[in-house]
């Protein structure tokens, strides 16, 4: 009895499957592709966040996708696993070399050592290292002709975001935290702080920045990783409890936790990092609470470096490093979306931006001593 019912059930399932196949499968077959691609392979190795982190890695990967679409290059990519070790980075890069890549973009500070060793061993492969320069084991700087460092003076854009946050805050308190306190992270927080101070000086106010107290950036607030959104949410709720109403999370996907926290408390806002969060599905739930985003236009830099590779004009070494800033549009803050700015602030931001580009205002950072 049992067997009979099982076979009938199976038959029914099979019928349903065939029916759905027939229904789904009646579209016309597309024509075979005709375009001839370029004989150049551009590759990318992500950090632990992965290419769909709605932030850092994803922005870099967008550049590779553009290169595939616009330049017709071949692509290959490796996502480092969560809890990645140096071994994972090394084998990720090795596998890209085995795939015959002409150019390998390594995304993030964590891959610096692995990139250095692979670049030394493979002088005919070009590398672009995002967010870090190379260094020797004793931390003395190193320059290799086949490695182009791509770095961002994000302090300039963060300065504008800090000014905007200070002007928008109703409680007179804003906050920021990092994932891990790497230089490429604290530069956001530092620029943000300077922007808030600029607002205080200009308007005679006393807006406070929580999470970045004191000059020692190694003591600033951090979640300790770039994965755990729950930690970001807890930390943000702590800042809200202390009276802050705007939080800048510099922690890749961990920032989602901050976004979720803004949903629980009315009148609180989040500032996005790396790309414009307003347009990303990951951040859609709280997009009305995104004040602005500090964008690193990594896609453009990645596309440019791949283009130079295809054209045979790749230049490496520290003297040819790319530093994105406001003036070359490598960094920027997003245009206004849903959150209303206080009257006149947009004009002040435009003026500040022009002053930074002209050099009248100098935002201190590791790139400008």
């Amino acid at each position: 009895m049992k067997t009979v019912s099982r076979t009938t059930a199976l038959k029914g399932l099979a019928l349903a499957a065939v029916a759905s196949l027939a229904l789904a499968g009646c579209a016309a077959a597309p024509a075979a592709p005709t375009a001839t691609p370029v004989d150049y392979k551009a590759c990318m190795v992500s950090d632990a966040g992965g290419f769909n982190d709605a932030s850092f890695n994803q922005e870099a990967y967008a550049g590779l996708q553009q290169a595939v679409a616009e330049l017709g290059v071949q692509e290959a990519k490796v996502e480092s696993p969560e809890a990645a070790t140096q071994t994972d980075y090394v084998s990720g890069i090795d596998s890209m070399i085995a795939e015959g890549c002409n150019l390998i973009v390594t995304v993030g500070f964590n891959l610096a050592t692995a990139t250095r060793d692979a670049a030394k061993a493979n002088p005919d492969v070009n590398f672009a290292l995002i967010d870090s320069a190379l260094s020797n084991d004793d931390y003395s700087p190193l320059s290799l002709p086949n490695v182009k460092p791509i770095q961002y003076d994000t302090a300039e854009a963060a300065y504008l975001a800090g000014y905007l946050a200070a002007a928008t805050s109703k409680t007179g308190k804003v906050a920021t935290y990092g994932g891990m306190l790497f230089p490429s992270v604290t530069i956001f927080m530092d620029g943000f702080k300077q922007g808030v101070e600029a607002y205080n000086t200009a308007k005679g106010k006393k807006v406070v920045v929580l999470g970045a107290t004191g000059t020692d950036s190694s003591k600033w607030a951090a979640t300790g990783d770039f994965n755990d959104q729950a930690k970001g949410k807890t930390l943000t709720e702590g800042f809200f409890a202390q009276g802050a109403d705007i939080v800048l999370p510099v922690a890749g996907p961990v920032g989602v936790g901050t976004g979720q926290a803004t949903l629980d408390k009315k009148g609180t806002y989040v500032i996005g990092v790396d790309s414009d969060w307003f347009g990303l599905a990951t951040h859609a739930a709280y997009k009305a609470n995104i004040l602005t985003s500090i964008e690193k236009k990594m896609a453009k830099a990645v596309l440019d470096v791949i283009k130079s590779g295809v054209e045979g004009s790749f230049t490496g070494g520290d003297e040819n490093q790319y530093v994105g800033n406001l003036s070359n549009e490598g960094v920027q803050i997003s245009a206004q979306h849903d959150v209303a700015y206080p009257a006149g602030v947009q004009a002040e931001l435009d003026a500040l931006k022009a002053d930074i580009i002209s050099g009248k205002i100098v935002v201190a950072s590791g790139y400008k001593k």
Partner: protein
Amino acid sequence: MKRVMKELTGGNAILSVLAVVASFIVGGILIAVSSESVQTTIGYVTARPSDFFTALWNSVFGAYDAMFRGAIFNYKATSFVQMIKPITETLAYATPITMAGLGLAVAFRSGLFNIGATGQIIFGAMFAGWVGIFVDLPFYLHFPLAVLAGIIGGGLFGALVGLLKATTGANEVIVTIMLNYIAGMLLSFLLKTPILQAPGSINPVSPPVRDTSKYWFFLGDQFRVHGGLIAMLLAVVFTWWLLNRSTLGFRFRALGHNPSAAKVAGINIGLTYVLVMGISGALSGLAGTSQVLGSEKFLTLGVAASFGFDAITVALLGRSNPWGVLVAGLLFGGLRAGAVTMQANQGVPIDIVLVVQSLIVLFIAAPPLVRAMFRIKESKKEVAK
């Protein structure tokens, strides 16, 4: 709970093998479903069915072929070194996973569910790393001292759990999970202080360990497999001897079968808890030395990677038998090594490998499911239990 433990750690080898096979089959289905070319071609499967079946074959066969080329032998490579590199990668990944797996097997056989391999690896790595970085000795003294320090570090951290259980009756599952966090946070703290942080660096990394403390890279610098492999094989033999041939191991197993009976038989339960957890932690500490003195060469926050948790699966898959753990460790090393090529070459998401690993756990935890899938009758031995 006791029954489940028995089922997990006893069981027979054929079920382990079938669990792996079943996981690969389900993994293959997932690869096919997630493949873009399969998704596109199914849209016009009636108009041009050949496209669909080619895409299906290419995605599944291509993925597992890439895994083979990444984990065992790359027959498409141009040089001999590149051809045999994959198997050495597998061995390099398998080394720490197997070592920690052996540690957990010792605990599981003694009826202690040690979840703390992560913390014990971190402690082993911290101790070994400190000696490797700051002590200046000739090779023949430095290397053994650094490895010994790692074993002691992991062993003490493990023994602490045994001590807590023996004296206060604390549940080892909860204690070990919590100690994982404590070890991780301690490492994170020490990497921000001059105790372990590299001078001149503002990032949480230590200076590299000295050359005199490193494992021997017996195949040369272009391969990442190192002397830890030999240490791992010695550890397998040691664990086998300990569990099956020594009186101490007999006490361990007696404790695992029935603590009350063991007590009546005159075994000092408290002391045995401490010894079991000490040896279990020492083996995980050895895995830590393989990381810091072999693969990584300096300490970072990610020094234990996911090996502590992989080791649980490896110990279960190997049925807590040292040789079984070795085979399971090699399988997991291969999965991790193959995943990279699968991703680089075929664009299969790295998460598929995680899914396959998780399915293995699922199938091991549900032997009736595997039996039903492959239509195997329950063996008499198991029924008798």
